[in-house]
């Protein structure tokens, strides 16, 4: 174990060096973007692998059906569908891409990973290829996540943000017809639910991403990329953290589990043990499998409660990216193009409520017919774009550790933002 753990990185590195030393990988086959690629489907052939990261049980079948449709249209292209858990895909892709072996042709890349992969040279630039079609149709915020150094390295697949998801029946029992609009109301509603129905008002998920709405709400943020400044240690963020700590100490939310936090909060909502959680559209198909929501009408979706400054939640979502070392770039372009047409996006939105990234997809009657999407659309329009920088993925661990010690009562709001600030300075050595 010891030797293996110790040398895994070095072996990878050694391999990479060996590969690059002998002229490496696969070069020369497609140096120029394939603008000349035949639009005639029968002309393109090859086998491509796609790493998908959706939940295999509730979301996978929809994408599998789209692939079947694609293969019917392009009989000479074979798409191999591989489902990789979303918490492992980033690591796996980095290992494979760096070693030059085993990487997929197309990967479903999280918005925050895209600039990181691009900066490391793993992704194929897509400007002027068939993959990126009608670019102006994409919503600006998701599109911004595909850019690195002025080039496009991905195509937006779905977009999302956090919202307040609540059990209408339980809120009604506590005397509320509407979701709380501010964090003060959130606390009051949660306490009333607890008092009148006996179940918990709010279930918190201890995860860095889920802390952002509280920060944005007070006008705080993590970084100011323009000024190269770390802004996490601000009075606004201290206030936001105090709000979160107060939700737990006041009993509005029970002391959250730290391990398996997400799963426990979801289970609590699905079983009617908690009335409200923060979550995104990706969770809807799972929530509807819960016993409280057999009648979908019982689930309320509202914007995240506002702090003293505004209501804001982070822009999340996923992109299609193509591995630069792919042996079948033309087939990959075609696949990505097909998967990100307004029709394909509409199908996904209709079936599993994942939000389209194309403005025109929202005009599709199928999409308009999906209530969840209609509810989420205005929330998406106010979502806050995060800084899409290669180091973006490293921001979460320090924040997560801070959140854990905050709800564990181990550190005060002031100490927490201070310790996060210190760790960020270790990541961004030359920032102020």
């Amino acid at each position, binding site marked *: *174990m*010891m*030797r293996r*753990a*110790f*040398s*895994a*990185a*070095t*072996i990878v*590195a*050694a391999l*990479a*060096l060996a*590969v*690059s030393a002998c*002229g*490496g*990988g*696969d*070069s020369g086959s*497609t*140096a120029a973007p394939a603008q000349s690629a035949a639009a005639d489907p029968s002309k393109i052939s090859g086998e491509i692998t796609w790493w998908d990261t959706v939940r295999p049980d509730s979301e996978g079948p929809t994408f599998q059906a789209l692939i079947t449709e694609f293969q019917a249209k392009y009989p000479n292209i074979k798409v191999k569908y591989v489902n990789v858990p979303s918490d492992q895909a980033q*690591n796996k892709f*980095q290992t494979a*891409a*760096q070693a*030059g072996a085993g990487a997929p042709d197309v990967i479903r890349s999280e918005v925050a990973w895209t600039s*990181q992969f691009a*900066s*490391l*040279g*793993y*992704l*194929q*630039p897509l400007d002027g290829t068939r993959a990126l079609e009608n670019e102006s149709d994409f919503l600006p915020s998701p599109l911004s996540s595909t850019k690195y150094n002025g080039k496009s390295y991905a195509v937006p697949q779905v977009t999302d943000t956090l919202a307040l998801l609540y059990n209408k029946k339980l809120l009604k029992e506590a005397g509320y017809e509407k979701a709380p609009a501010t964090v003060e109301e959130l606390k009051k509603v949660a306490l009333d639910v607890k008092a009148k129905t006996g179940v918990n008002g709010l279930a918190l998920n201890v995860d860095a991403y889920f802390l952002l709405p509280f920060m944005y709400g007070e006008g705080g943020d993590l970084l100011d990329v323009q000024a190269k400044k770390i802004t996490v240690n601000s009075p606004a963020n201290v206030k936001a953290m105090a709000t979160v700590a107060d939700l737990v100490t006041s009993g509005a939310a029970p*002391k959250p*589990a*730290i*391990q*398996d936090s997400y799963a*426990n909060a979801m*289970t*609590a909502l699905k079983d009617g043990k908690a009335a409200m959680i923060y979550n995104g559209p990706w969770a809807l198909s799972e929530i509807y499998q819960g016993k409280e929501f057999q009648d979908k009408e019982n689930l309320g979706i509202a914007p995240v409660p506002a702090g003293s400054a505004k209501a804001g939640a982070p822009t999340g979502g996923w992109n299609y990216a193509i*591995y*630069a*070392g*792919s042996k079948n*770039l033309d087939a990959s372009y075609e696949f990505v193009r097909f998967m990100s047409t307004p029709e394909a996006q509409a199908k996904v939105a209709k079936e599993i409520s994942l939000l389209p990234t194309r403005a025109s997809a929202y005009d599709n009657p199928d999409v308009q017919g999906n209530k969840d999407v209609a509810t989420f659309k205005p929330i998406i329009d106010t979502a806050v774009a995060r800084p899409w920088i*290669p*180091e973006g*993925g*490293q921001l979460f*661990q320090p924040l997560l*550790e801070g959140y*854990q*010690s905050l709800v*564990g009562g*181990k550190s005060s709001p002031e100490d927490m933002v201070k310790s996060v600030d210190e760790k960020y300075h270790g990541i961004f050595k030359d920032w102020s």
Partner: protein
Amino acid sequence: MVAPVIVVTAVLIGWPLVRGVYLSLTDATEATMGRTIGVNVIPSSYEFVGFGNYVDILTSGLFWEKLIWTVGWTVACVGLHYGLGLGLALLLNRKMRLRSVYRLLLILPWAVPPFVAAFIWRYLYNSDYGVINAMLKAAGLGAVGWLDDPTTAKIAVIAVNVWVGVPFMMVAMLGGLQSIPGELYEAAEVDGATPWQRFRHITVPGLRTVSSTVVLLGTIWTFNMFPLIFLITGGGPGSSTEILVTYAYREAFTGIRNYSGSAAWGVIILLLLVVLALVYRRALRKQGEVW
């Protein structure tokens, strides 16, 4: 005839080791390591920095914090492994009915792959839906957030590791006990030695060779027990249960990978264990053991 062995060892172990040590003296990361993938050409831009990485690690409070916990974790686990393993072995070393059934049951935890064991325990420990808390509640006691508090999380991972590691110790000790000739015990009994004296003067010396080997092995394994910590707590809450190897992994595999930093961590861990093994051997030599 030794040549093939040397060649294979050199290729499999020597080369990565040399490369790792070299990397630890540079500032190589995923971003500075050169490569060409399709149309993208990234030039190599890492430099030799001497012992910079080592200085950074050894001067950070984090390293010492992790080292103290790793040593504590190792001592606690190996002590419990050895004590419980020896106790169970002594119990099973007597003639009794169903002896083989007990042995089988006690060896079971060893047969469970570590990651399966880790996930099972993680469910048992779950603070809202776990079996352990359900039992506590049923008994009228409050639920405990086992993995949510640094202290209880440490106790929890030690408990799991003990559960996983005791069978090996038990089997090794049983083997040792059975190799002690029965005549010795008979002779001692004839001479009127008490059970404690028999244990003290026959069993303990008879087990010395086995003990010294399994304790060294156990120490190295526990020191580097990556899967349990990683899968049960992920090093959390905060980074309180993170041992040196899981921290080195995090350094190597999160975000833009820091090859040089993690290689330096690896070299430091290796040196710690080498020093431990040398000191241990010397101590055994002093007691007249032949290694």
